């Protein structure tokens, strides 16, 4: 005899360890099966887009730190690229290389958190996470050397970076570069064939390539579904066209693939950093940029491949010292569009890991 169940609404969050920030999901359940979910945003909404309209172009850089606060450097860079495009500012060679090194280190740091948090959600409670934090710590130390900060770096400037690399930076970076591949092998040994991880993540929460494109997914989520699209290759910004690296992709688009994808991407980032270290020229690190940038009337959209996907800034100028409008294209928010289709029909426990495999930061969703 079939047992009839009443639909049951479960509120997950806003404060729940698996929601990676203050974020709520209203899940409608039939027994243990997810019938529908509705993400509820806004708990961290600070109106950053409105705030930018009252600040000078240079004064907005610290605000961008607070978007995706675990990859602040990428946000800084995306914003600076947009202003440089709008005002036609040329960045010195050395600054371009420093930016690439820093941005790729930031990618590794952010992906380590993504992978660690995902494994947390899978039930490997905090053991892999702490391993990941061990390496992230080294990267944060490097960032502290260049910027004096450990979370909101505010290092990039319009026209370059705020200061040159300090003396102790290069030796520490080389040490990190020597050790990191070994650590990554360690993760693979520990996790890649792990029975529990495979049982929980393989075949779960499949997102097809077509669906991913239709939902405007980007970054590792898109590539794990087999779509070969990386802005560093498709629309190279800064000096990415000078480096030799591959775009890894996966085939199925399940949670395991998204995890694999992030691990593969870290290895490619290491390749880029290695080449950038070898080619690093000397020279100035910041172009002569006036304190008050006043671009001509017009608009510009600049984007980059952030650790979570396509991060872009759409700036509209009315020839004043503050942008007329500054829109931020948030990869975290847009990647969540596909969540509803991915979780329907799965159990509540799977909902947690499917959500975890998308990897979001609420600071960027709410802005």
């Amino acid at each position: 005899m079939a047992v009839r169940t009443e639909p049951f609404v479960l509120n997950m969050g806003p404060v729940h360890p698996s929601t990676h920030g203050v974020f709520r999901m209203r899940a409608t359940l039939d027994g243990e099966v997810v019938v529908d979910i509705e993400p509820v945003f806004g708990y961290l909404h600070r109106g950053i887009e409105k705030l930018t309209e009252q600040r000078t172009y240079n004064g907005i850089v610290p605000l961008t730190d607070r978007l995706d606060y675990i990859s602040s450097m990428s946000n800084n860079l995306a914003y600076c690229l947009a202003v440089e495009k709008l005002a036609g500012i040329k960045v010195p060679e050395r600054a371009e290389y420093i930016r690439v090194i820093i941005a790729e280190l930031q990618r590794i740091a952010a992906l380590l958190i993504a992978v660690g948090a995902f494994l947390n959600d899978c039930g490997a409670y905090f053991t892999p996470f702490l391993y990941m934090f061990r390496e992230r710590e080294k990267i944060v130390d490097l960032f502290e050397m260049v910027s004096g900060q450990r979370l909101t770096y505010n290092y990039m400037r319009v026209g370059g970076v705020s200061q040159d690399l300090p003396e102790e930076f290069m030796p520490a970076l080389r040490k990190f570069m020597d050790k990191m591949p070994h650590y990554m092998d360690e993760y693979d040994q520990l996790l890649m064939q792990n029975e529990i991880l495979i049982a929980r993540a393989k075949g779960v929460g499949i997102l097809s390539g077509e669906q991913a494109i239709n939902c405007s997914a980007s970054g590792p989520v898109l590539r794990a579904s087999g779509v070969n699209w990386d802005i560093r290759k498709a629309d190279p910004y800064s000096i990415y066209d000078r480096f030799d690296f591959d775009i890894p992709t996966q085939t199925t688009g399940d949670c395991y693939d998204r995890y694999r994808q992030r691990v593969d991407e870290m290895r490619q980032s290491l390749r880029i950093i290695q080449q950038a270290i070898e080619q690093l020229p000397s020279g100035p690190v910041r172009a002569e940029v006036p304190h008050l940038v006043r671009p001509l009337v017009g608009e510009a959209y600049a984007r980059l491949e952030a650790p979570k996907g396509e991060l872009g800034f759409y700036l509209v100028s009315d020839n004043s010292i503050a942008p007329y409008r500054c829109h931020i294209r948030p990869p975290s928010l847009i990647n969540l569009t596909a969540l509803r289709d991915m979780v329907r029909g799965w159990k509540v426990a799977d909902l947690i890991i499917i959500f975890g495999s998308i990897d979001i930061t609420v600071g960027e969703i709410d802005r």
Partner: protein
Amino acid sequence: MTVSLSGKEVASKIEEKFSGSVVESSAENLVIKSDRVLDVARFLKETDGLDFDYLNFVTAVDRYDHFEVVYLLSSLEHNHSLMIKARCYDRENPALPSVVDVWQGADFQEREIYDLFGIKFEGHPNMKRIFLWDGFDGHPLRKDYI
């Protein structure tokens, strides 16, 4: 390198199919009549050679006498992009057709525009505020809000 298509060339293709639907066009972008947005969106996605299957973002700009809604489209296959715009002159009850049926990626972004600018997207399956709470007074990204 992503090639950004000339708005003028695409405009002539659109005009062939839907005459009178392009308000103006330039090298960088083209402006669509607001009631034809959905038809044009579908045309841009489904026409061979254009194949705009990816919506990068959609946002709005308050130009005082009208709202400008901006769509950036890409084709992953051809690696080209195009910016299209639509204008809403009604400040009291601005509305546009929703493009969620064409690109699902517009879902949260159209809700965000509704929340912060007050532009209603007709045909959207869940047109309500996304960040601010129900009952919040006003739409903060409008230029006349404080």
